[in-house]
């Protein structure tokens, strides 16, 4: 029997091309990454902007660098200030993007991407967010909004990690929960909904999603594949013509299967 307070962490997700990218034969420019650590997990999702020539590459560098930076720091220091850690991770992500852009002789704006990073620990959930997309947490069966799309008047405008003002655009929020769900713009409409002008979490999607993923583990199912299948379903693709990324992290009592 596991110790009463023993928990383990699971993270899963998928990025799939939106209908517009499929139609125009453009590869998916979203990306996601995860790191499972002792007593914590980190996940990141990013949406490379279509207007940027290498937006997809920017998204990939952003998620891999930010999650890698958080993992290294958490392995070295078990009790860091997570908000500061996320700021540093986003900054490292931007640095690596800039380096890649420089190597290729192009402006960093060619790699324009959003970034949403979340860290789930035994005590809290902390999210760092630039641009659109959304992040919600789940505690028991109660979902809460942790981070929403950044302010912009028009639907086709967003802030980017690659912007000069990225530090002022980085929004850090924290909460509690045993699960965290992150989505890029393409599928944020599945986890948060507008209701009389305000965003609210969409429980009919969030609760069964997390509970099903938890139960799939004991069946030995590939959670990434399950999420990928969900995102490519016709009803999800009807939400938006954008690329879609959904990443879920949660902790369970006991030891890993």
């Amino acid at each position, binding site marked *: 029997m596991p110790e009463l307070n023993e928990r383990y962490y699971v993270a899963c997700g998928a990025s799939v091309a939106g209908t*517009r990218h499929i139609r125009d034969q453009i590869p998916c420019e979203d990306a996601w990454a995860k790191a499972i650590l002792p007593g914590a997990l980190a996940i990141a999702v990013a*949406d490379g*902007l*279509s*207007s*940027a020539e290498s937006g997809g590459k920017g998204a990939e560098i952003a998620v891999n660098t930010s999650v890698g930076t958080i993992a290294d720091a958490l392995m070295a220091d078990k009790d860091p200030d997570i908000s500061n850690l996320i700021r540093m991770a986003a900054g490292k992500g931007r640095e690596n993007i800039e380096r890649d852009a420089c190597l290729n002789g192009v402006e960093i704006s060619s790699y*324009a991407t*959003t970034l949403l990073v979340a860290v789930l620990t035994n005590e809290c959930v902390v999210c760092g967010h630039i*641009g*659109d997309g959304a992040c919600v947490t789940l505690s028991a069966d109660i979902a809460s909004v942790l981070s929403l799309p950044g302010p912009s*008047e*028009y*639907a*086709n*405008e*967003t802030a*980017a990690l690659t912007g000069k003002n990225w530090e002022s655009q980085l929004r850090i929020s924290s909460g509690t929960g045993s699960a965290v769900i992150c989505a890029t*713009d393409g599928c944020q*409409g*599945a986890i948060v*909904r*507008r*209701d*009389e*002008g*305000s965003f609210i979490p*969409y429980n*009919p*999607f969030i609760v*069964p*999603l997390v509970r*099903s*993923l938890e139960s799939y583990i004991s*069946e030995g*199912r590939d959670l990434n594949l*399950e*999420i990928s*299948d*969900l995102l490519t*379903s016709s*009803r*999800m693709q*009807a*939400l*938006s*013509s*954008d690329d879609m990324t959904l990443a879920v992290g949660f902790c369970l009592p006991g030891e890993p299967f």
Partner: protein
Amino acid sequence: MGLDKLEDIVGIPYPQHPHCATVLVLDTSASMSGNKIAELNEGLRILTDELKEDDLAVKRIDLAVITFGKGVELVRPFTGISAFDPPELSAGGYTPMGAAILEAVRVVEERKTEYRTIGTDYYRPWIFLITDGQPTDMRKGDEKWEQVIEAVHGGEKDHKFLFWALGVDQANMTLLREISPPGRTPLMLKEAKWADMFLWLSKSLSQISDSRIGEQISLESPVGPEGWGVIQL
């Protein structure tokens, strides 16, 4: 195993589409009589039919029509494309273009307030002016002229909307150029190209309604041997 797919388990909400408010500001003064008003009416039908064929445009474009001739009239308030009924316009009266432009700016701001109130995301609205003459309700330098210039140039500068001006036949292109925002040269419709112009408008609105975050839309150029418009310098 495999039967309980996530797609069948989770509740997937109906999409909440961002909207794009578009106002057509149309000259229906007496000089538009005859073929021009007939072609304008046919163009409105073409625009409506084309947009109705586009699934996303149907969900996202809200179209309004303001005419100026026998006064300024909002003949169609903002209406979703599926319910949009193109008006049958008739020509008559003077050319109160200034008041019509100010009315377009007003209804666009009002619509954006409505979107915000109900929590609908939206794209930057479009104002599309078509005229064959010159304003009779303002003269260059008078109070209304300054008001219109401030509304159009300031509105574009503040990203409140996109303003396009199109001249037909004897339109005063010099004045249209001054009314148009800096960098947005008004276009002159080539003879017998009304249908092409409305097809371009339809395609452009479809592109806007399918645009994604941060994207700069490259609209098909209306100018050129195959295009419907020319730039008069």
